[in-house]
C-alpha cells in the first residue's frame, strides 16, 4: 500500500467521523461548527480527486458561506435541545436499516465500474484551443455548457427573490437581518480592516487565473462576498437595503451581459451562446468579470437572509 493511499484512507475516515458527528451531536450550534469543519476537510478530498476547481468552490461555499448562513438560523432559534422531540428507537432502527440498504446499493455501483469508462475529457481538450482558454473546467462552464451556467445564475437570483419575498410586509425593501449584535470589538475591526484587501486581491486573482488554471468567477465571487460580509459583521459598514438600485443593478449585470452576448451569438456566430471566432476569450473574460461581481452580491445577500428592518429614510 502506498503512502498516498494511507493518506486517503485516513482522510476518508476523518470525513465520515465528522459527517456522522454533524448528525449525532446534541446542539444545533455544534452541528453547524462540525459542518464547517466538514466542508474544509472535503476540499482536501477534492484535491485528492484532482479536482482543484471543485476544491476551491467547496472550501469557499461548503466551509465558510454555508456556515455563516446556518449560524444565522441557529442564533435566531435558540430553542434547541431544551424540549427536543426525539424520534423513537424503532423508527431509528428502521431508518438505519433503510440507509444501510441505500449505502450498500451505492457501494455495489461504485465497486463495479463499467468496463469502458465513458469520458468526455478528450473531446473537451480537442475543442478547447479555439476558445483561447487553458482551464478545461472553465471551458465546460463558459463554452460547451454555457447554458447551464447562465441558468445557474438565474437559479441563484430566483432563490434570492424567494428569500427576500419571505420577509414580513413591514420590512419589505429594508435591510437584511445581519445584525451587528455586540459592541465594536477592536480585534475584529482590525481583522475586518486587514483581511479584505488581501481577500479582494485574491478574489480578483481567482477570477483572472480562472481562464488558465483552476479558479474562476464562482470562486472569486465567493471570496468577495465573504470579505463584504466580514466588513458588515464587524460593523464597519451597514448592510444595504435591498431596495437600493445599485444593489439590484449589480445583481443582474452579470446574467444580463451573459444573456446579451448569448443573443448576439445568434447574429454573429449563428447559435445561441456561441462566440464569434477570435473573440471568444475577451468575451468570456468580460462575462466572468461581471459575473464575479454579480455572484459576490448575490451570495452575500443570500447569506445575509431576508430583510428584517424597514429602511430608515
Amino acid at each position, binding site marked *: 500500500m*502506498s*503512502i*498516498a493511499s*494511507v*493518506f486517503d484512507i*485516513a*482522510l476518508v475516515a*476523518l470525513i465520515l*467521523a*465528522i459527517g456522522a*458527528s454533524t448528525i449525532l*451531536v*446534541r*446542539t444545533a*450550534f455544534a452541528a453547524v*461548527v*462540525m459542518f*464547517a*469543519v466538514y466542508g*474544509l*476537510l472535503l*476540499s*482536501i478530498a477534492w*484535491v*485528492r480527486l*484532482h479536482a*482543484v476547481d471543485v*476544491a*476551491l468552490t467547496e*472550501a*469557499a461555499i461548503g*466551509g*465558510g*458561506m454555508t*456556515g*455563516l448562513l446556518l*449560524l444565522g438560523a*441557529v*442564533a435566531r432559534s435558540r430553542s434547541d435541545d431544551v424540549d427536543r422531540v426525539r424520534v423513537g428507537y424503532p423508527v431509528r432502527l428502521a431508518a438505519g436499516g433503510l440507509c444501510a440498504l441505500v449505502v450498500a446499493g451505492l457501494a455495489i455501483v461504485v465497486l463495479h465500474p463499467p468496463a469502458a469508462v465513458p469520458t468526455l475529457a478528450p473531446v473537451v481538450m480537442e475543442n478547447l484551443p479555439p476558445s483561447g482558454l487553458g482551464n478545461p473546467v472553465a471551458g465546460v462552464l463558459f463554452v460547451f455548457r454555457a447554458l447551464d451556467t447562465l441558468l445557474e445564475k438565474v437559479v441563484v437570483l430566483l432563490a434570492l427573490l424567494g428569500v427576500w419575498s419571505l420577509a414580513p410586509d413591514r420590512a419589505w425593501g429594508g435591510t437584511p437581518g445581519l*445584525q451587528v*449584535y*455586540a459592541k465594536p470589538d477592536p480585534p*475584529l475591526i482590525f*481583522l475586518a480592516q486587514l*483581511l479584505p484587501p*488581501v*481577500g479582494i486581491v*485574491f478574489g480578483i486573482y*481567482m477570477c483572472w*487565473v480562472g481562464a488558465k*488554471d*483552476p*479558479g474562476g468567477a464562482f*470562486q472569486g465571487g465567493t*471570496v468577495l462576498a*465573504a470579505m463584504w*460580509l*466580514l466588513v458588515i*459583521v*464587524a460593523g464597519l459598514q451597514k448592510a444595504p437595503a435591498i431596495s437600493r438600485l445599485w444593489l439590484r443593478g449589480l445583481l443582474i449585470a452579470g446574467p444580463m451581459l451573459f444573456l446579451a452576448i448569448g443573443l448576439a451569438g445568434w447574429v454573429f456566430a449563428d447559435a445561441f451562446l456561441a462566440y464569434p471566432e477570435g473573440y471568444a476569450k475577451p468575451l468570456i473574460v468580460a462575462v466572468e468579470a461581471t459575473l464575479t461581481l454579480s455572484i459576490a452580491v448575490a451570495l452575500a445577500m443570500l447569506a445575509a437572509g431576508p430583510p428584517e428592518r424597514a429602511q430608515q429614510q
Partner: protein
Amino acid sequence: MSSLLFAASVFVLLTVALGLFAILRRSADVDRLMAVQLLGTGGVAILLLLAVASEMPPVVDVAVMLALFAAFAAVAFVRNASGVSREARGE
C-alpha cells in the same frame, strides 16, 4: 522526496484528527470554536505538503482559500456565540 512529504502530510492529518477528537470531547460550545481554527492551520499545512508532493501548484490556491474561509467562519462563529449571550443578558 515526494513520498516523504506525503508521509509528513499523513502525520499532520493524524494529529489534526486527534486534535479534533480532543476538542469535540468537550461539551461546551466555545471549545468547538477551536475546531475551525485547528483546520485553519492543519488543513493549510496538509494542502501545502500535498501541493509540493504531488506537484500540483494550483493546490496552493486552495490553501489560501482554506485560510481565508477558516478565518471567516471562525469570526462568524465567535460573533454568534458572544452576540447571543449579550442579547440574553439584555445589553
